[in-house]
């Protein structure tokens, strides 16, 4: 029983980083219907930016981290403005390939500048300390990540539901022509979306980096985050978060009781099964196309 609880706690701890990446992907997908494959690398370059400030320029982390978050938001805006918006007659697949291209460019830039050696980020709390709940352990970094996830989910949820900008985003997603006619600057909305999404991704990067950072560190969280978002419904923020925690728990239960080797892939099998039953994910309303 103790083991079971520990495994569940582990699953939740792991799910947090998936949740952040999932959230980031959902934000972009909600407004532009593009699964953004560059999400991980946008977070990567922002994280390395913080690393650069700390290691090369000797800034303390309380300057470097906010700077990296701002950098990531600006980067998101710039990428949307300078690259995606320039696409002529965009179609979804073309957009996906553009994000794949951006992924390669960003990854190339990071590896070019910093090399491939693993590094670790200076961080206010040691990532190996843990809190004990009875005999169940969870590391302080994971608790922090969990808090960040809950806070961001809440904030984003409220933002999308109640703020003017959030409503405008919703309108853009539902019918961008009508939104434009209503006086919403849909281009600008898209740009802001990318900024917010990149910001959320960057928090994931910053929270992963204290243990080990290297140029490929965001691949796994991105894939799992994407998978989790799909399971949750791809358009629902709470859905993505719940999906992420489910994924983390399922993975760890499977790894704990059945097979570690298939731990990572079983998540995908379960998602396929979920999708067979609910083709639009667990928490999105199934959208039936009108003819």
């Amino acid at each position, binding site marked *: 029983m103790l*083991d079971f609880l*520990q*495994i569940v706690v*582990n*699953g939740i*701890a*792991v799910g947090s980083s998936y949740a952040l990446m999932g959230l980031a992907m959902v934000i972009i997908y909600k407004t532009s219907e593009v699964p953004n494959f560059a999400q991980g690398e946008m977070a990567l370059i922002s994280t390395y930016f913080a690393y650069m400030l700390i290691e090369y320029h000797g800034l303390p982390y309380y300057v470097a981290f906010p700077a990296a978050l701002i950098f990531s938001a600006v980067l998101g805006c710039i990428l949307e403005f300078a690259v995606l918006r320039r696409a002529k007659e965009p179609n979804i697949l073309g957009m996906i390939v553009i994000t794949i291209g951006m992924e390669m460019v960003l990854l190339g830039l990071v*590896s070019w500048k910093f*090399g*491939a*050696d*693993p*590094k*670790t980020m200076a961080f206010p709390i*040691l*990532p*190996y*300390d*843990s809190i*004990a709940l009875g005999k169940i*352990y*969870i*590391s302080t970094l*994971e608790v922090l990540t969990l808090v960040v996830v809950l806070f961001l989910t809440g904030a984003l949820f409220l933002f999308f539901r109640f703020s003017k900008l959030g409503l405008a985003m919703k309108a853009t997603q539902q019918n961008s022509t009508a939104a434009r006619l209503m006086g919403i600057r849909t281009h600008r909305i898209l740009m802001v979306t990318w900024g917010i999404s990149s910001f959320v991704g960057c928090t994931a990067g910053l929270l992963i980096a204290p*243990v*080990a950072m*290297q*140029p*490929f*560190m965001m*691949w*796994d*969280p991105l894939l799992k985050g994407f998978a989790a978002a799909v399971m949750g419904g791809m358009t629902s923020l709470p859905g993505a978060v719940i999906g992420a925690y489910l994924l*983390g728990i399922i*993975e*760890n239960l499977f*790894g*704990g009781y059945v097979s*570690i*080797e298939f*731990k*990572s892939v079983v998540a995908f099998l379960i998602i396929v099964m979920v999708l067979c039953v609910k083709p639009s994910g667990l928490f999105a309303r199934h959208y039936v196309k009108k003819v």
Partner: protein
Amino acid sequence: MKKRQLWVVLAVMVMVIGFAFGAVAEEGVTDTEIHIGQWGPQTGPAAAWGSVARGTAVYFKMINAAGGIHGRKIVYHMFDDGYNPAKTMAGVKELQEGVGIFAWASGVGTAPGMAVRKYLMERKVPWVGAASGSHYWITPPEKYQFATYPLYFNEAMALVAYAVNNLGSKKIAMAYQNDGYGKNGLEGAENMLKRHGLELVAKVPVEVKDKDMKSHVMKMKQAGADTVLLWVSPTHGLTIMGTAKAMQFAPQWMSTSTLSDFPFMYKISKGLWQGVITGSFAELPDSKNPLMKKYKKAYEKYAAKEERWGVFFYAGFGFIEPMVEALHRSGRDLTRERFVKEMEGIRNFKGIMGTINFKPFDPKDPSSRLGTNEVFLVKCLADGKYEVLTSWLTVK
């Protein structure tokens, strides 16, 4: 009709030129140059091992600055294969058939190496010092391939023997990368444990792509392991130890020479690495060995400023020391056959790795193509300092 003749003539010419090159002089050797090639991942997930190929580059620069080998300079062709066998094959073919490579040095990776092995062996191109200790390079032994990296199998045996005999470990668990690298180590560990009438209490496969190591640590913790052997990549090692620390699981950690770069590991693990015992196949970074000092000078002179003086940088020197020795011994009259003969004549050769011995080729004897099986064990102290636990040893 005329056109057809033209084609026939052209085809014949191509063939003649193609064959002629082989007959006139040894491929890759001119009056002033010896062409040596190497592949190494400079990009992609395995790029951290790319330092081997860059180390070799510095080694050759050092040799050339000292006048080369019998008046010939070494021309070093290194290319990036991104750990993708298709690209390794492409690069090897391009260089072998375009430039003409006399011999190949080191080369990181099992899959890339396996993809080109047959090609090189069929063409009778020597290949010295593949940069991994898997048994693929000597099963079956090939006349033109020489391995200089001690087998992971034997290294694991040495580590387990030390754990059982000197540390009194009873419950040993192992986390191994789920590929040739990890499985070679696993076999060695199990083999040695069997001799002591023990078994691994937990063996946990680690997928290269996985990031989350919690289930892995849980398994080993549940098994109550007092010693854990890590046969994984540095980042996985880091994650496993960090996760274990957070779960208050503190066994004696042991690991392979791949993770023996203590100053580096200590730094990136924020001190977690203290107390880890690993094998080592080469002298330590702070060694007083005169050869090591010489190499370090070359590193300071020729290496890029971001280059780290780590094990897998100077391993780029160490893996091919016997190759350079054999090139020296071959004299002016350098051919591949002569080179292989000189390689086979290497006995009790001591560079910065274990003592290297080769034997005349025997297809039934893998050790005729395995230069050394010697490792020694070290322990990580505070600030990434080394404590040497054993002298060079071979566990059979």
